[in-house]
């Protein structure tokens, strides 16, 4: 069970540790459900390189795919990212982030009231 979690996390971190792959995720965030051809547009990467990066992203489950006829559509799948958030940020920093956000809110309210 532990090995399985480590494997999954490793795949996600490995997939994210590359500028080109993060760029592909950003492009899917802008427009979800793109084909390979659409993703290749205006990119300084060969089609082969994009294919390779997408395969890694799919393996890490950061990209979900759907076939529509002969077209393969790529979707940003943030489910594993939420698991990372939960493990590395959520449980440690939530109270602190909450305190900061409360502080911000209270300072901003006071300022508005003065004005």
């Amino acid at each position, binding site marked *: 069970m532990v090995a399985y979690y480590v494997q999954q996390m490793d795949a996600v971190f490995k997939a994210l540790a590359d500028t080109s792959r993060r760029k592909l995720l950003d492009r899917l965030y802008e427009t979800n*459900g793109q084909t390979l051809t659409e993703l290749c547009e205006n990119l300084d990467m060969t089609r082969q390189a994009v294919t390779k990066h997408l395969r890694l992203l799919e393996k890490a*489950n950061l990209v979900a795919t*759907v076939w529509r006829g002969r077209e393969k559509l790529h979707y940003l799948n943030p489910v594993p990212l*939420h698991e990372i958030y939960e493990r590395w940020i959520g449980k440690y920093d939530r109270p602190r982030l909450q305190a900061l956000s409360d502080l911000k809110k209270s300072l901003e309210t006071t300022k508005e009231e003065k004005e």
Partner: protein
Amino acid sequence: MEKPKLVYTTYIRTTPEKLWAAITEPEFTRQYWGGGMANISDWKQGSPWRHVTRGDQPETYITGQVLECVPAKRLVLSWADPDDLADKSRVIFEIEPFREMVCLTVTHDDFTAGSTMVGKVSGGWPRVLSSLKSFLETGKGLDVACDHK
């Protein structure tokens, strides 16, 4: 054919039957969905279904119809805010065994033009699905999911 708007997948170490129960039985749903929300229906094709809060007088947040139901395999629901029934969309749960795991794909599509639902659910699904995975694998949903509606 319009292309689907939102597609999420998660691989869960469980069985299709347990995953099905986690989606359709309120006593399980409440443990991971967040805010103690549950899905209520008899899960027969054509029946209504409701996504409701806990308590004696449950409040309905989402409502719709069961469009397709193949236990442990496929569930298709129509999906709308009861205060804005015209803004209707569709949610498809697909369950497929994958090696010693189960792959769950959730597709949320068929949004009406100008739907406000996309924005409301796109942050929520990843949270619900990672909490569902945690619940089935460890017996406990994620706390953070419970902080949100």
